[in-house]
């Protein structure tokens, strides 16, 4: 639940701080939308392996006959379901809040659906590297936020182009490519990082 509240809260703060003129909102809307989504994801990310690491479950995952990368993939999927999917559900609200045309709601939904798998998988690598550090939250943000830049750029530009009735296929395909790439490669990297952490 927390990421959703955080997502809406950040988005609600911007108009208060900047200006509530509709043209202004329309201009910053796509950017705020994706920055808020990325920050909300990082916030929830830290929990991904924390309890498994603390209670020893991670060790049992690591020495199970099953490949650790498959367990990681299952965890990523579960994490995405509880943190990213709710964002997708509330996102239309945000699009309308920023006076963006109703026609861009669908595109905003699509960018989140296409981009959040990459966010989750990339963030998980950062978590795997920092989970043994007490209060590794800040370190995690420093580590993964720069890696979110491509997703942020393509996500925000897709919504922006939709608001101006321009074709959105390009950025959307880029987002999907990033997600496919990270879902298929990250589990191995995350598993390797976890093994190093557990040594």
């Amino acid at each position: 639940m927390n990421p959703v509240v955080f997502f809406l809260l950040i988005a609600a703060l911007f108009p208060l701080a900047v200006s509530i003129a509709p043209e202004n909102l329309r201009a910053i809307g796509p950017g705020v939308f994706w920055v808020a989504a990325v920050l909300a994801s990082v916030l929830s990310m830290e929990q991904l392996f924390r309890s498994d690491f603390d209670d020893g479950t991670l060790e049992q995952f690591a020495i199970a006959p099953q490949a650790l990368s498959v367990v990681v993939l299952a965890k990523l999927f579960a994490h995405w379901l509880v943190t990213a999917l709710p964002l997708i559900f509330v996102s239309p609200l945000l699009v309308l809040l920023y006076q963006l045309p109703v026609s861009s709601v669908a595109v905003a939904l699509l960018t989140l659906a296409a981009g959040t798998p990459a966010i989750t998988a990339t963030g998980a690598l950062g978590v795997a590297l920092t989970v043994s550090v007490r209060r590794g939250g800040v370190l995690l943000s420093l580590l993964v936020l720069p890696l979110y830049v491509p997703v942020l750029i393509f996500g925000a530009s897709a919504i922006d182009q939709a608001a101006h009735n321009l074709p959105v296929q390009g950025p959307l395909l880029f987002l999907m490519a990033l997600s496919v790439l990270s879902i298929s490669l990250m589990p191995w990297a995350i598993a390797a990082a976890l093994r190093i952490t557990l040594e």
Partner: protein
Amino acid sequence: MTSMLRIEKLTISRGERTLATDLNFQVNPGDALVTEGPNGSGKTTLLRTLATLSPPLSGTIYWQDHEISDITEVYRSKMLFLGHIPAVKLDLTPLENLKVYARLAGAVTEPSAALERMGIQRYAAILCRHLSAGQLRRVALARLVLTAAPLWILDEPFTALDRQTIDGLSTLLEEHLAEGGSAIITTHQRLSLGQASVSRLSLGTG
């Protein structure tokens, strides 16, 4: 008879510190190996190395004459490791915990039967958050009943257990050894395992 586990010239380290050098020993079916030594002498590190959690600094571990680095997945399916922390999820019930583990490691016994064997079937449906430390350890120990792993690697398995459970665990160990399994254990308790051959490995003396 081939040995189950054979260790050659094993050197283990924790961080920058070398804890034990040139360890050589072997564990045969039906054998128990008890590692002894003062705190910080490397008992846990040795067990974690044997459980494939930490890589050794040098030396080789053989499982039935194959290097374990070549047959990691096979070895992991033959080995059961219980560490200091019980690896029990507090937000799940004991039964759910065991079901997860059964799927992960491959079970030969029903999870509920394993709980019964450890005498905690009464708490099967209570969240582990509400159980005591000793009861949590028993949930963790129920894994021993759950799988058919021939090699048990147990780090301080008797911690936080009451008299009765200690006896129960000893019986479990005796049965396991009598069936041709083997066990590597660290403990500060005096261990009596009936007829089984118990060898000892002292760390931190040299």
